[in-house]
């Protein structure tokens, strides 16, 4: 899954035959593709994997509060806005990242064994 720059190489676009992030890989091959239910046998185990809890509901109180926190902690002295905004809270910009990054990809390694053995649909 190494990101090769085969074909094209622009500085703005990361390019590879497969997605570099595990979240995208999981989205494609655990959620999609042809399936014959009776024969899906996967154990999901341990820290390496995988319940992806990355779906963000933008319109939720939770999200509003996180967005507010992030924007309140935003340090505009680093931007062209410095002149029009009051210059308070200087030197806090490093903290802002953590505010939202903490929840952006909850890949929960669960010890649970998920075995799908549904009866064959058709």
């Amino acid at each position: 899954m190494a990101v090769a720059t085969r074909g094209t190489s622009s500085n703005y676009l990361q390019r590879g035959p497969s997605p570099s992030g595990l979240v995208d890989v999981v989205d494609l091959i655990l959620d999609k593709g042809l399936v014959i239910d009776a024969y899906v046998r996967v154990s999901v185990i341990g820290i390496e994997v995988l319940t992806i809890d990355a779906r963000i509901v933008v319109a939720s109180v939770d999200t509003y509060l996180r967005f507010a926190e992030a924007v309140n902690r935003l340090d505009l002295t680093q931007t062209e806005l410095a002149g029009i905004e009051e210059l308070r809270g200087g030197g806090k910009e490093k903290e802002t990242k953590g505010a939202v990054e903490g929840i952006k990809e909850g890949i929960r390694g669960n010890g649970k064994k998920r075995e799908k053995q549904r009866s064959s649909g058709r």
Partner: protein
Amino acid sequence: VAAVVVYGVVEPGTRLPRTAGIDGVRPRLVEARTVAALVGDLERDELLARRRDLTAHMDVLTAATERTTVLPMQFGVVMAGDDEVREDFLEPLEERLRDLLDRFENLVEMRLSARYDEQELLAEIVATDGRVQRLRGAAGRELALGELVADAYQRLCARDARPLLEAIGTLVEDEVSGDGREWNLLTASFLVRRSNRAAFERHVERWAETNAGRATCELAGPMPPYSFVDLELAPPEAAWA
């Protein structure tokens, strides 16, 4: 050999990808008249969804896509042996699988993931939205502020994605939106004809360039049509058959 994992369905006689599959085992073909399964031998009878196994599954299918039309299986389809692959899968579904191979001939999936840089995006929102400026730092107004930011973010997503979607409109056969992760700008899979791929990629590159510095963009592919295959797509068997 305890079992076989089924990676996907391909044209019979397809040249095998050189990629090592799950557990380092090279894939091989199980054929049934007009369709074939790309399978790998397993020393166990179920799979673990470890990163390296998921990656191996995807790598086999990506490599096969360089040579032929591939109908990708979901990760984790394990059958007892070649006979079961033929008798329980390929033969009963042969017509549908054949129809899908024809339908997806020369079509590949390209997946775009674009995310905003948080700092740049928030600065942009503050700079352009007077209401956000006024509520910023106001005690007790966090919910209202957050809602304004969320609205502004969603408007920006729509505005920023539109030029690309318009530009590639005639080059894609189908598209499916992916999950929106935090500060997602656009996550989507596109079904693209191989002959349109270069033009498609040029549009994506140009678009990524216009968003340089404020969003990171990744384009993956060509991959088999994970997001578009569905056994239900094939015409149902006649009721009296």
